[in-house]
């Protein structure tokens, strides 16, 4: 990398770059430290606390950098491999928040098992590192690096509870499919390189292949393969088959990790890659995006209709949501990328909050189920009557589901509003129709989920009498759920609070 023409001075990493990259460096340092910690003393409590500590520090550092003016403008280029800008760190903030929640939720899951789970926390940190590399990457090599760090650590996590029924199946499925996807992506990158001779995202204008000459076959195949690799991770429509099984089979915190951290990071890098490579000038690329988006909206929503298992339902709904999100890729010129980023980040935060909320409640009811023994999977039936028994959890679920459905008062609506704005500006009527129809179908499974919380059946009333129908929710969790609820309401009613932070 030192031979790259952009870097003329002999210093590879100047102080400014070091500061800009510090959250990720800190995270890597933290990983090394936690390895040492494991070598020193194996303690479940200690490693969990330490992981949380690292994540919080990283989060605070990132927020500090964001509130400073080091990241204004086009960001800081760190060698050819990485480029740190506001948007990448904003999504890194989302990633850290969600990883923190995952770690906190995991503590209660892992408590019930006998072993000491150092690797588990280490792997989560590695996932976050991979995601961090992805969001700041500006080069196909760093993209691949981040992708692999993320995937391989996730494989370990997905099958972590090996004695569980689906663990081995899930782990293998994810390993094989993920490896296939990354090899597709690598092939795509190779094809692109064969045409452009450049692996950096930031193509200088004289070698920009899109506007200058007609698209060569290798190049388009390359982009297609690259996109399919990313689409696999985002579980977009023709590449979505893995996601419900793996959502269902993974431990719940890990499902949350996959639904949020991995997807947010992959989507951020996809936007970064598309915007700096100017893919939006290429009509056939936009066509492919449109088709994949429409397919995802329809397939995700339609397949979710009959789902009774809440994890599977969330998997399908997430397919649809990333279908909606693809709308931001159809910008028409570089000037509009600001707005696209704003929309994407807002939508991602809404999606993230809603997912965190739903999975938190899911985990609580799973724990409750564990105590009562029996089938591990939580179905919609298990949530019947929750509103009358656990007001807080139920209200949280209601608001999150409404956010996913895009109903006002929630962040999800504002996110959808941004996407519609974007689609209207670029007159992508197909995508608009897809969004409208998709949301309509979506309601047909979101609403029954909400109604289920109100359903009040005789059998459940008996449970209340026994006292076993009421979940035991710790004060900490209650506080956390309350925060989630307040923040999603607040940001839903006053979206400026978030968008000011994004814009500045």
């Amino acid at each position, binding site marked *: 990398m030192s031979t790259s023409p952009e870097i003329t001075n002999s210093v590879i990493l100047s102080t400014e770059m070091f500061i800009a990259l510090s959250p990720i460096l800190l995270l890597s340092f933290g990983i090394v430290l936690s390895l040492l910690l494991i070598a020193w003393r194996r303690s479940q409590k200690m490693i969990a606390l330490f992981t949380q500590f690292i994540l919080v520090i990283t989060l605070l550092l990132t927020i500090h950098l964001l509130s400073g003016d080091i990241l204004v403008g086009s960001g800081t280029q760190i060698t050819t491999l990485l480029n740190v800008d506001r948007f990448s760190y904003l999504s890194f903030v989302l990633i850290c928040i969600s990883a923190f929640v995952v770690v906190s939720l995991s503590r209660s899951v892992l408590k019930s098992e006998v072993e000491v789970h150092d690797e588990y926390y280490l792997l989560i940190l590695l996932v976050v590192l991979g995601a961090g590399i992805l969001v700041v990457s500006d080069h196909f090599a760093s993209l691949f690096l981040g992708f692999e760090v993320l995937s391989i650590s996730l494989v370990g996590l997905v099958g972590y509870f090996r004695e569980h029924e689906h663990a081995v199946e899930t782990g293998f499925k994810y390993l094989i499919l993920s490896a296939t996807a990354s090899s597709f992506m690598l092939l795509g990158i190779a094809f692109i390189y064969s045409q452009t001779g450049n692996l950096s995202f930031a193509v200088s204008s004289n070698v920009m292949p899109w506007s200058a000459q007609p698209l060569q076959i290798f190049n388009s195949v390359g982009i297609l393969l690259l996109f399919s690799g990313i689409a696999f991770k985002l579980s977009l429509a023709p590449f979505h088959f893995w996601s419900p099984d793996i959502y269902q089979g993974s431990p719940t915190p890990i499902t949350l990790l996959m639904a949020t951290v991995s997807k947010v990071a992959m989507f951020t890098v996809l936007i970064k890659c598309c915007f700096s490579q100017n893919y939006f000038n290429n009509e056939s690329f936009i066509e492919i995006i449109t088709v994949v988006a429409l397919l995802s909206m329809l397939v995700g929503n339609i397949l979710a209709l009959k789902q009774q298992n809440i994890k599977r339902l969330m998997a399908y709904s997430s397919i649809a949501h990333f279908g909606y999100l693809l709308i931001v890729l159809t910008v028409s010129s570089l000037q509009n990328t600001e707005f696209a980023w704003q929309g994407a980040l807002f939508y991602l935060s809404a999606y993230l909050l809603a997912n965190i909320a739903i999975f938190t409640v899911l985990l609580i009811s799973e724990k409750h189920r564990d105590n009562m023994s029996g089938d591990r999977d939580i179905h919609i039936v298990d949530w019947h009557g929750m509103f009358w028994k656990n007001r807080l959890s139920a209200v949280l679920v209601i608001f999150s589901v409404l956010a996913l459905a895009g109903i006002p008062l929630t962040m999800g609506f504002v996110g959808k509003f941004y996407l519609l*704005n974007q689609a209207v500006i670029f007159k992508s009527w197909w995508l608009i129709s897809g969004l409208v129809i998709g949301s309509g179908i979506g*309601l047909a499974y979101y*609403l029954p989920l909400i109604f289920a919380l109100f359903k009040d059946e005789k059998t459940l009333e008996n449970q209340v009498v026994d006292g076993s129908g009421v979940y035991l929710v710790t004060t900490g969790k209650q506080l956390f759920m309350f925060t989630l609820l307040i923040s999603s309401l607040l940001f839903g009613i006053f979206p*400026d609070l978030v968008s000011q932070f994004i814009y500045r």
Partner: protein
Amino acid sequence: MMLTFVILGLLLSGSLAWYSDDKPFFGVRFQAKWVALVAVIIFSLIFVFSVYLSPLNFQTLQTIAHVSWINSLNINYTLALDHLSITLIMLTLFLALICILVSWDEIQEKSGFYYFNLLATFAGIIGVFSAVDMFLFFFFWEVMLLPMTALIAIWGHEKRYFAAIKFFIFTQVSSLLMLVAIIAMAYIHQQQVGDLSFSYQDWLSLELNNELALYLMLGFFIAFAVKLPSVPFHSWLPDAHTQAPTAGSVLLAGVLLKTGAYGLIRFVIQLFPQASENFAPIAVTLGVVSILYGAKMAFAQTDFKRLVAYSSISHMGFVMLALFSFNEIAYQGVIVTIVAHGLSSAALFSLAGMIYQRIHSRNLTDMGGFWQSAPRMGGFGLAFAAAAFGLPGLANFVGEFLSLVGAYQVFPVMVILAAFGLIGSAIYGMVLFQKTFQGSSLKTVPDLSCRELIVSSSLLMLLVILGLYPNLLLQYFRGVIL
């Protein structure tokens, strides 16, 4: 700020009702219904007095609250009132009282949450009638749906979940179309004037070419036609009405359908005058089809509430027919029809609720001969049925008459067809009355209680007053040219 106060007040007193239900304070056991009733009375009085004492001339839209909300998109919290919105808000507040009174004994379970939802719906509806920032309008438009859906889904009858989902999906999908049109209008404003604006008043000055205006108008039109409802989009209504609890049906028929009419008047016709004029033949045809189809279907029903629901479709057809005739008399007819239908359908649904409480059935075959045991109920039933089929002397007659007279000048053939709907309404009105109150007495039912008497007589009184002296309402709508 008075209106904001009313909206927020309703919402907060709803929460108070929810919180305080069945809890003792200072030795007194609070009941949600009392909290709700007192709140609605207080806020209605506040609203009436502040409008009455206001120095503003409500002949045109008067902005009464303006606070910036989402700066990055130039979205403001703007409320404005004119005579149209004031009339509809008064109707809403009046029916709010009726709704609370009819649910007085009906709702026994989870009553705190029930009254919260009821008051939240009113708050949302008042917001819809007064918001002039389109984002805000959409916000209220959706927010009023949520508690309404909850009312149907939690306290409704046997097929309530299905009805609630159908209701929600219909309105949500159509309103998304409206949202797209709203966003498109905002960007057209940006193109023409230079800045993004969601303000209704700003949009009035936009120049739109015909084709674009047609598509945008359709976005709004479909959303409002679903709410109205007009024929191809009506199928949610019979289900929702039938399955909702009594107050829910009163609310749906009395006020929620009026948001559709209001939207057509305020937004479709005024924002896109040319496009709606071009579209008028289709809209008028839809109106006439609704009138005839609604009347025909009403006649075929055996379910009391379903019958009234179909009659609503028929009556709202008159609104659509008259509105798209662009005629002053027809417009006055629309206003009277809106108010009169609000009162008469509310009355019929309350009656259905009263009967349901007595015999636990909505089926007309289970009814009959109630006159003998409950003559007062029968009398009111006859009067309300008469109002529904437009007996002179009651408000509905004035509305339908004016609508038809006005529209005749523009669409004579359509009006002649629509007039057959009046015959249909007489048939279903009489069927309803006869099957319920006449014939051999199957059951003896207790006559109206004091509370039910208040509900029925106040509704009937208003119907008679407006029927005999419609000027009370019409004086505010003179010289309005669409």
